[in-house]
């Protein structure tokens, strides 16, 4: 009897774990389904709230249409139409045929009293602007807030900024030239001197493995980066010892510290303006459909996308970009001829004043 009982008990014990495990799994699945359902409900509610807020924000507003631009605004003295007529050709020249998709991304603006003491309705949709701006300022607002059509996260990550029309292209190019010359990176220097492989490295267009060694080629650059930009970051915790070794010119420690940084936090040797300029060059080379080709395949490598947009080989595009940067060398800080003449003129004027002085008559 006791043997029989023992066997029955053993069987029941052996059988119970899969059963209980199964019920645990089922319970967890139910919970996750419930959470997913709740999240979807919340999402729907948020969409409804956004929609209602949008209706509230745009109630009583007008829609101004110029080219592909759609501007939803409340009645105000702001010169929206004139500004849009100025902004549209610039936007159209950047996005090309894709600018026709811009009606999907309307601007929502609300003109408000420039007096900050006046009470305003709180809105969560659109941008508030004081109603006393002139055409130039409103045009600038339109150019700097336009939404690039179908701009995917991969391109945004690589670019590091939004792709919008440039307000001052010459200054932007000159800034890249200054970076070319002053960036503390031998790779950038190599690019400046014409090594296209280095240009592709610093623009992150080719192989992305070993990016630390590609961007910061020499041990002194890596040490300067760790001890300078990341000195405080590595100074405490488990990395403090490595930082100390790095400060003692141990390159292995410096490299290891830089490799331990979270993805995307290693400073780019060239700022985003350089990449922005490359994209602009690709769009300029590729004609009106260039932007469409650029955003056509978000999963493709950036180099392929740029090459496809420009319609030329990526190396040729980088050469073109480099030539554009070199051509934008800023004007030297020499005095203009008229400033020299002005200084001589002022010297003569003050000299003449001295000649007319009356001390002699004392």
């Amino acid at each position, binding site marked *: 009897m006791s043997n029989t009982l023992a066997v029955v008990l053993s069987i029941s014990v052996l059988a119970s774990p899969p059963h209980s495990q199964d019920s645990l799994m089922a319970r967890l699945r139910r919970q996750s389904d419930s959470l997913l359902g709740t999240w979807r409900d919340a999402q729907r509610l948020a969409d409804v709230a956004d929609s209602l807020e949008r209706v509230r924000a745009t109630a009583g507003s007008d829609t101004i249409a110029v080219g592909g631009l759609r501007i939803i605004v409340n009645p105000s003295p702001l010169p929206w139409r004139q500004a849009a007529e100025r902004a549209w050709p610039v936007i159209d020249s950047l996005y090309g045929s894709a600018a026709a998709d811009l009606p999907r991304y309307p601007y929502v603006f609300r003109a408000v009293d420039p007096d900050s003491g006046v009470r305003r309705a709180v809105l969560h949709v659109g941008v508030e602007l004081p109603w006393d701006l002139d055409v130039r300022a409103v045009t600038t607002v339109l150019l700097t807030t336009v939404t690039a059509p179908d701009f995917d996260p991969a391109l945004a990550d690589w670019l590091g900024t939004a792709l919008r029309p440039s307000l001052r292209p010459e200054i932007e190019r000159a800034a890249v*030239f200054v970076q070319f010359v002053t960036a503390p990176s031998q790779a950038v220097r190599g690019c400046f001197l014409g090594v296209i492989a280095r240009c592709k490295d610093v623009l992150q267009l080719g192989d992305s493995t070993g990016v630390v060694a590609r961007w910061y080629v020499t041990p002194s650059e890596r040490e300067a980066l760790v001890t300078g930009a990341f000195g405080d970051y590595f100074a405490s915790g488990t990395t403090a010892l490595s930082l100390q070794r790095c400060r003692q010119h141990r390159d292995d420690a410096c490299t290891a510290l830089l490799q331990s940084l979270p993805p995307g936090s290693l400073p780019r040797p060239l700022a985003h303006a350089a990449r922005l300029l490359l994209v602009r060059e690709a769009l300029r080379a590729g004609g009106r459909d260039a932007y469409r080709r650029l955003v056509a395949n978000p999963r493709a490598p950036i180099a392929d996308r740029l090459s496809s947009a420009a319609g030329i080989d990526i190396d040729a595009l980088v050469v073109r970009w480099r030539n554009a940067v070199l051509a934008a060398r800023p004007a030297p800080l020499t005095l203009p001829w008229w400033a*020299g003449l002005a200084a001589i003129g*002022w010297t003569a*004027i003050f000299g003449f004043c001295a000649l007319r*002085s009356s001390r002699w008559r004392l």
Partner: protein
Amino acid sequence: MRPMFRAILHSQWKWSRLIAVVGTVAAFAIPLLSLQGAARADRGALQAQELLRAVQSWGTLYPLLATALGLLMAIAAWAPDHRGRHIHALTLPLARWRYVLLRFGAGFVLLAPPIAAVLIGSSLAVLTATLPPGLQAYPIALAMRFALAVFVAYAVFFAVSAGTARTAGIVLGVIAALILVQVVASIASIDLNLVNAAQTVLLLGPGPLAVFSGRWMLVDV
């Protein structure tokens, strides 16, 4: 006229030789110090920024030196006359304007050595340095700018020194009045910025002090 100029130049040299010598030494040394050790070829890509930073920091000394030279040289040109109550000048067989012109010209001659020192020092500094690719040296432009700044500063202070106490009083009075108006406007919350306006008139465009503004770079992109 030439012996007269030589005599005035000689007397002015005696009064201001210390200023001229010290100014010349300083003008020669600043460009050399600004590029000191910052431009060795073995320093790699890190050096360009450091070099530009050093050159920019040292560059602030050029307008200061130009102003100091102009001021001291102008004071030295007139101090003995003021002390002697212009009796010596009155005894000379010269019209007032000729006398002032000779003094003015003598000052320019004495300011030539510091200007030449900036040119020579800058050229020497650039020749002995290895500049990173992409950077360019502007020794002649710097020396020309320094010369213009020295001349303007000297002319301004020479005119002030040559004037009467009444003239100086009028100039100071105008400045004080401007400051007073600015203070009153600020108190009354009136949108009036005379300081900015004065700055624009004096330092920008063809203003008298425009040559002093901006960066003074011996080396730049």
